[in-house]
């Protein structure tokens, strides 16, 4: 049975809608990218004109969307065979591969040029690096070859705060690298927790996620190691002047919960409880990252209003 015959009446209209193209840009990933970049822009020790700040955020969001579209173009074959991704526009036949490639390519070039010309070229170059890293290093090279795919590939998701910071200051500083490192260390426990209970999906399509290659127990051990490294690292912004007391309190409190959930994942190895523990860590990890950057955001906003 063809894909077309399986889909509903609405899908039989062979015209990609605006919604299909929005879905192609991975809007949920875009939201996280925008949020972390915006928090870094506000936390950066310099002002930026609101118009240029807004353009920077839109360009970063479009750049992230371009990465998502190009990723879906390249991964259409495996997306069609995984439950989590089978409903994406390419596997459903709503958008052709050529359309996805053109759309992603135009957005990628457009977002980099806009950020470079209108804001500054440090930020533009970092955005170009992020898109290139996500597509060439993660999607095309690492994803189907090594269980370390999301460790190294995670760098692409960690760049946005550095881009936001560079949009304001025009340079790369230790503080922006620290924000990069927090997301970089957060990525493995976040995705491996997901991979633990979606293991069969990845196995079926031959993506060498850690639970498929090294087994669930090794994955749980790696999750715990990265969590132990992540939690103290996430407190450091307070000590370098990036975060205030609210950030210190929240990063410690959320960190304790994160560690407790990672320990539970490590010790719960059998049955549905193991899946539940992994799912809880996965969901909490999203809250954790949003919580850290939301606190940085609010603190920076308050200090700007008060000054």
């Amino acid at each position: 049975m063809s894909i077309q015959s399986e889909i509903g009446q609405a899908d039989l209209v062979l015209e990609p809608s605006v919604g299909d193209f929005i879905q192609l840009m991975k809007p949920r990933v875009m939201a996280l990218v925008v949020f972390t970049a915006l928090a870094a822009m506000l936390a950066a020790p310099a002002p930026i004109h609101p118009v240029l700040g807004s353009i920077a955020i839109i360009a970063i969001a479009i750049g992230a969307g371009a990465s998502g579209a190009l990723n879906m173009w390249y991964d259409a074959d495996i997306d069609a065979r995984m439950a989590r991704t089978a409903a994406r526009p390419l596997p459903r036949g709503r958008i052709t591969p050529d359309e996805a490639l053109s759309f992603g390519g135009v957005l990628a070039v457009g977002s980099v040029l806009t950020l470079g010309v209108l804001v500054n070229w440090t930020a533009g170059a970092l955005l170009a690096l992020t898109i290139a890293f996500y597509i060439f290093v993660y999607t095309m090279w690492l994803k189907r070859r090594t269980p370390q795919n999301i460790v190294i590939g995670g760098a692409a998701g960690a760049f946005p705060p550095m881009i936001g910071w560079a949009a304001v200051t025009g340079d790369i500083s230790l503080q922006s690298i620290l924000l990069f490192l927090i997301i970089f260390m957060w990525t493995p426990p976040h995705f491996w927790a997901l991979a633990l209970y979606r293991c069969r999906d990845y196995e079926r399509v031959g993506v060498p996620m850690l639970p498929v290659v090294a087994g669930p127990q090794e994955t749980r051990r790696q999750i715990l190691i990265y969590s132990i490294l992540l939690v103290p690292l996430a407190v450091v912004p307070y000590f370098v002047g990036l975060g205030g007391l609210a950030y210190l309190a929240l990063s410690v409190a959320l960190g304790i919960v994160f560690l407790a959930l990672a320990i539970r994942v490590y010790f719960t190895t059998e049955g549905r409880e193991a899946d539940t523990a992994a799912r809880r860590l996965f969901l909490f990890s999203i809250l954790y990252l949003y919580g850290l950057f939301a606190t940085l955001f609010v603190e920076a906003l308050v200090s700007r209003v008060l000054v």
Partner: protein
Amino acid sequence: MSDNAKDKKQSEEAADRIRRRRSIAIALTLGFMVFAFYVATIVRLGGNVANGVY
């Protein structure tokens, strides 16, 4: 009108509607780009024109 012809007509109308929305979205995006470049240019120039710093 047969069911097939009716379905085909409905499908064509739906396709037209989708195409129109897509065209509007592209037009709005291009319009926004022009506006953004114009405003950003003004912001970047700012008082520099009056000061002779280009």
